[in-house]
């Protein structure tokens, strides 16, 4: 840090500084839907500046690989990102984000591996740099395999339910400790390449082992957590390469991922450790369609359901993952449009952890052109339920389960829920009589004011549309 920098280096640093500001201003834009697109435009400028600044780096002597890589990467990125080429449905968004995490983390890992090989063979690897490289590769490799696993689970290539075995957590913690121990060993003896490769292998297997026991309903937390790891890995790369821009942007990504995971955990009233180590969502054996005291669910015909909806004053729609699975958001929009034309007030109640990623329901409904001022957060809408004529629950289960308030023995006890049970009547669209994703029986479905409409959500809603039109 002594002496003045060469002009070229000064230009790079100046570009990086401006770039960092653009990134922060860009993220600031996400605080409102009107400014969000412009904000992301700023962030994109920041990224372009970062690339431009890097391209004049003194260490780059040949541009063949550089531009070749940029070109191929851009083409693949455009193919994935543009609906014109491959149409990725909005329901598949979580797994595509997971896949994109994996790609970024592969880059971070490879750069770390490369840097280690260069520096260790030159014999100039200070302990501090080694620690940074260690963390970069550790977090990077873990993110790669973890994201691929998350992709597999969400895409249903792998079983979505948690996979557990005895001493799982002890084993994972031991592996993590082992990997950290190897990083420490490398700081003292960077020439022991075997440490490095074993650490890399442990990190990669940890990614798999960490995601295996986590069930579908906890996926939002995992995806945000992987986001945080990818960011921290980039930051570590910044420490290793003496690059402040990497440190800053990595920290921004890390903060975002961490904050989102914390928010998701809060929304479920569960601690971080509980999500990671709890293997929530283990199947519970329960008799389908019947409670212990013998009460049964009551089914409703679509004709009756349509009448109830059409003559209501206020209908609050509670969407859940089932809506996304059935791809029923467009049909739902059609139904609510019809109801609004008849003078029914329609609101959407969005639970923070409905779906498989943070804010999943918001994007899904936005895709169906539902205006965002009709979407309400849990705190905003809960007071409305007592004056709600029909609460229309579509493919949601645990987020409306009153057991979270009343039954201390329930695994979801304490989780804030949408107070659907306070509505004057409840209509539940559900695929079958089985318990929800978490395998917990839902008392709400047996409430005397609750009526069930069984079947595929899309088919049921389309049927309701026809019936409402016929009225």
């Amino acid at each position, binding site marked *: 840090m002594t002496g003045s920098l060469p002009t070229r280096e000064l230009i790079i640093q100046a570009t990086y500084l401006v770039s960092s500001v653009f990134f922060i201003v860009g993220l600031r834009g996400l605080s409102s839907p009107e400014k969000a*697109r412009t904000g992301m435009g700023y962030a994109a400028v920041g990224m372009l500046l970062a690339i431009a600044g*890097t391209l004049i780096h003194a260490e780059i002597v040949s541009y063949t690989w550089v531009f070749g*890589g940029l070109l191929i990467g851009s083409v*693949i990125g455009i193919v994935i990102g543009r609906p014109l080429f491959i149409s990725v449905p909005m329901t598949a968004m979580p797994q595509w984000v997971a896949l994109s*995490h994996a*790609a970024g983390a592969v880059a971070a890992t490879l750069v770390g591996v490369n840097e280690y090989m260069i520096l260790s063979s030159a014999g100039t690897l200070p302990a501090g740099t080694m620690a940074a490289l260690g963390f970069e590769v550790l977090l990077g490799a873990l993110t790669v395999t973890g994201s691929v696993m998350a992709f597999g689970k969400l895409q249903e290539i792998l079983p979505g339910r948690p996979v557990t075995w005895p001493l799982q957590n002890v084993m994972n913690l031991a592996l993590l400790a082992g990997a950290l121990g190897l990083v420490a060993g490398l700081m003292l003896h960077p020439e022991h390449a075997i440490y490095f490769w074993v650490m890399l292998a442990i990190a990669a297997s940890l990614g798999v082992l960490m995601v295996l026991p986590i069930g579908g309903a906890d996926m939002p937390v995992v995806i945000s957590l992987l986001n945080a790891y990818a960011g921290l890995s980039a930051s570590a790369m910044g420490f290793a390469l003496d690059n402040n821009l990497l440190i800053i*942007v990595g920290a921004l990504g890390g903060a975002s991922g961490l904050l989102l995971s914390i*928010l998701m955990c809060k929304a479920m009233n569960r601690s971080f450790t509980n999500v990671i180590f709890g293997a929530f969502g283990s199947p519970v054996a329960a008799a389908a369609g019947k409670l212990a005291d013998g009460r049964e669910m009551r089914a409703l015909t679509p004709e009756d359901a349509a009448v109830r909806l059409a003559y209501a004053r206020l209908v609050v729609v509670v969407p859940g993952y089932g809506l996304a699975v059935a791809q029923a958001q467009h049909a739902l929009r059609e139904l609510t449009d019809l109801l609004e034309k008849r003078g029914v007030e329609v609101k959407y109640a969005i639970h923070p952890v409905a779906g498989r990623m943070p804010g999943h329901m918001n994007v899904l409904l936005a895709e169906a052109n539902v205006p*965002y001022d*009709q979407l309400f957060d849990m705190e905003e809408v809960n007071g409305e339920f007592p004056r709600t004529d029909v609460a229309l629950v579509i493919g949601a289960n645990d987020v409306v389960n009153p057991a979270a308030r009343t039954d201390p023995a329930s695994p979801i006890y304490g989780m804030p829920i949408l107070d659907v049970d306070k509505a004057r009547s409840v209509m539940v669209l559900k695929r079958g009589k089985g318990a929800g994703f978490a395998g917990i029986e839902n008392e709400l479905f047996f409430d005397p004011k609750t009526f069930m409409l069984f079947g595929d959500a899309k088919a049921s809603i389309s049927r309701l549309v026809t019936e409402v039109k016929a009225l």
Partner: protein
Amino acid sequence: MSLTTVLQLYVFVLAGFVGYQVISRVPPLLHTPLMSAANALTGISLVGSLVAAGSNHGTLSNVLGFIAVICATVNVVGGFLITDRMLKMFKRDDRKSK
């Protein structure tokens, strides 16, 4: 610990703090685009990949860098495009403003 490392830690902590402050203002409505945006941002590892791909440390190093550049670019380009595609869908109710 060198002065550079100390300064880097300053930068890291302050950037993390700024990030936390800025991001806690993002409404739940935009949490998915936020996640996707943060994903695009972590593609910043492209910066390190570019140097590795173009530096003079042997072919293996360049090939590793080359693959890293491809992956990071996919992350960046794909991330920004997907975020924009999502944000485009968020609309106000036009009927009310008319």
